[in-house]
């Protein structure tokens, strides 16, 4: 599959112990730590961070689940236990600035943890990538690969676009990637930005069984495919899983990729 070709097989990311002088922490999250598909997003991101010579570090084995799903499934005390453990680790390494590619992690670190004394500057990876492009630390050169010429749409994750108002930066990255395309940019779905529609994984629904007729992901994938795009860009590992399933349920060959993976593909890394 085309997706395999753009995979970055191996990367190295320093831990906070290996690089104590780090400027920014890259929060990996459970999905990219353990889910084979989401792992590629983290590898793509590390490749980009290294290419832009960003001084970053990861928590490695000391990182725990943010507890977002636990809190939204109603298990407040399990969430608080995880939050307190993470806040302690983050303060141990004096973390101030965090990048995360998962909007649920972004929201938890930003809005949940601030209720328990954890105050951080948290940016979604699309925001950070937009800055790297703006500052010229990553440069888009050469021809647009054929794989990206067949139309790209972008699905706004709820916890990114609606809940945290982040919807222009991912478009900025994709806009730069697609500047030479026939479309001249992304193909928008009618429900986009703050009005985006859920992929079906939020609120702990990621962990629940759903009958195929009732899958939110199938209908949302239908909307994405109706734009005629052959690539569905996302900015969330849960959306990545859900929409990959949804696109398959729609019997489409379209690719579902994270914004960072699309940028890697454009840069030819």
């Amino acid at each position, binding site marked *: 599959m085309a997706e395999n070709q753009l*995979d970055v*097989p*191996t*990367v*190295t*990311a320093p831990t906070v112990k290996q690089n104590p002088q780090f400027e920014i922490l890259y929060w*990996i999250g*459970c999905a990219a*730590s*353990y*889910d*084979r598909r989401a*792992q*590629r997003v*983290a*590898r793509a991101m*590390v490749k980009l961070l290294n290419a832009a010579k960003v001084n970053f570090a*990861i928590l*490695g*084995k000391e*990182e*725990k*689940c943010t507890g977002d*799903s*636990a*809190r*939204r*499934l*109603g*298990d*407040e*005390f*399990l969430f*608080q236990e*995880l939050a307190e*453990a993470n806040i302690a680790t983050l303060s141990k390494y004096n973390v101030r600035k965090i990048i995360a590619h998962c909007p649920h992690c972004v929201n938890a670190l*930003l*809005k*949940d943890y601030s*209720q*328990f004394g954890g105050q951080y500057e948290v940016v979604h990876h699309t925001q950070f990538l937009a800055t790297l492009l703006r500052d010229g630390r990553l440069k888009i050169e050469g021809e647009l690969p054929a794989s990206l010429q067949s139309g790209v749409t972008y699905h706004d994750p*709820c916890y990114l676009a*609606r*809940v*945290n108002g982040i919807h222009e930066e991912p478009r900025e990255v994709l806009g730069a990637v697609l500047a030479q395309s026939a479309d001249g940019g992304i193909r928008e779905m009618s429900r986009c930005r703050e*009005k985006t*529609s*859920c992929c*079906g994984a*939020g*609120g*702990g629904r*990621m*962990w*629940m*069984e759903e009958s195929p*007729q*009732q899958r*939110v992901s199938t*209908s949302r994938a239908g909307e994405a495919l109706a734009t005629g795009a052959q690539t569905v860009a996302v900015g969330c590992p849960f959306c990545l899983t859900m929409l990959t399933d949804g696109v398959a349920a729609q019997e489409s060959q379209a690719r579902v990729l994270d914004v960072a993976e699309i940028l890697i593909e454009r840069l030819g890394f």
Partner: protein
Amino acid sequence: MTPTRETFGNISTTSQVAFYFVATASVAVFVYGVWRRARLWQYGQPIHFRQLFTGRLSQIFANIAPGLRRLFVDGLGQQRVRGRGLPSWAHAGLFAGFMMLLLGTTLLEVNHLAEMVSKNLSFHHGIYYVIYEFTLDLFGILFLLGTVLFAGRRLWKPPSVGHRPSDWLVLALFLAIGLTGYAVEALRMVWQQPVGIGARCSPVGYWLASMMSHWTESQARAAHLGVWWLHSLLVFGFIAAIPFTRLFHFIAGPMNLFLSKPVLGQLKPVTLEEAERDGRIGVSDIRHLNTQQLLSLDACMECGRCEDVCPAFATHKPLSPKKVIQDLKSVMERLPDVAVDAPLNPHEVIEAETLWSCTACSACVFVCPVRIDQLSLILDLRRHLTSEGGLSGTAATALRRMQSSANPWGFPQDERANWMQSTSTSQPD
């Protein structure tokens, strides 16, 4: 002659006394109705309303400024009612018409009181009068237009819009109030015979009066008195009906806009002390909701926007945020009928499966015109279910794994950095 009209012109002193008597009765019914609802809200957990208004003046202002802003922008500015095409315009027309007519009637009464103090204080004449009459005539049209559009909305009602028979009564009242208002104005012009700008500043009344120009003065005076009474009684009926119909959103809507401040993505924490003190987590009794949350239930107009954007509802799951609000409201309404210590459990009305269907996507909270926080209500109910072990299946497993392995998949913490190589050892399916 300066353009003007006499307050209570053609209305006998007896009628005037009767008018204020009926007015008092109508306001009394209104106050009783509001008190009846406010009493329900007070069954909830206290919200420290007074704290908003304590401290130094600058502190008080800082406390209430965000609420006032929401009142002005979302309420008066109608910012959250936008976005639904014609129905949004219908609401804007009805709202603008109503507010202007309310302001006009208030100014009229202020002028009346000023006149009673001294004739020199009267301001209802001259250029002010011309602008006043013209503005009210124009906004009356908006009011009627909004009413007619909303009647159409009820006739061709989308399924998400709630409906009760009393909604027709309300719209009929609005229509009758608007029409009799113009009739009173026209009949007054027939007997008063204003000329020039004093007549033309009321274009609708002037036009209607021209059709009755053959009436004698006494005929016009008699009809004027009759229609004036009809108009007055309709208005008083409307005021009395506010707390007993959907119109109650006039009161509960702005109150909720002022008090409710949902921050998307943020939930209220529960502390261990609270859990120990209350012997519970989350909401298992309607009284566990706070006063503002109960009030928010009364702010719901069943406009259905939340249902329209709900991904669970769209995929035929048993959740509609609107229905959750209405169900909670029906439980709240049973409060006066049960003993103080008798339980009133919302979980008896709202199925667990309904609550589990929510994806916490926040679309309902985002679109609600009166800022009801459906998500927090659902999560408060979920917290109780989870604390009672009500979560089962794969999601319960995920929670157990988060507890034991600090990740929902249950993989070892040692393998957390294995993602750096695409051939890591342990892999999920």
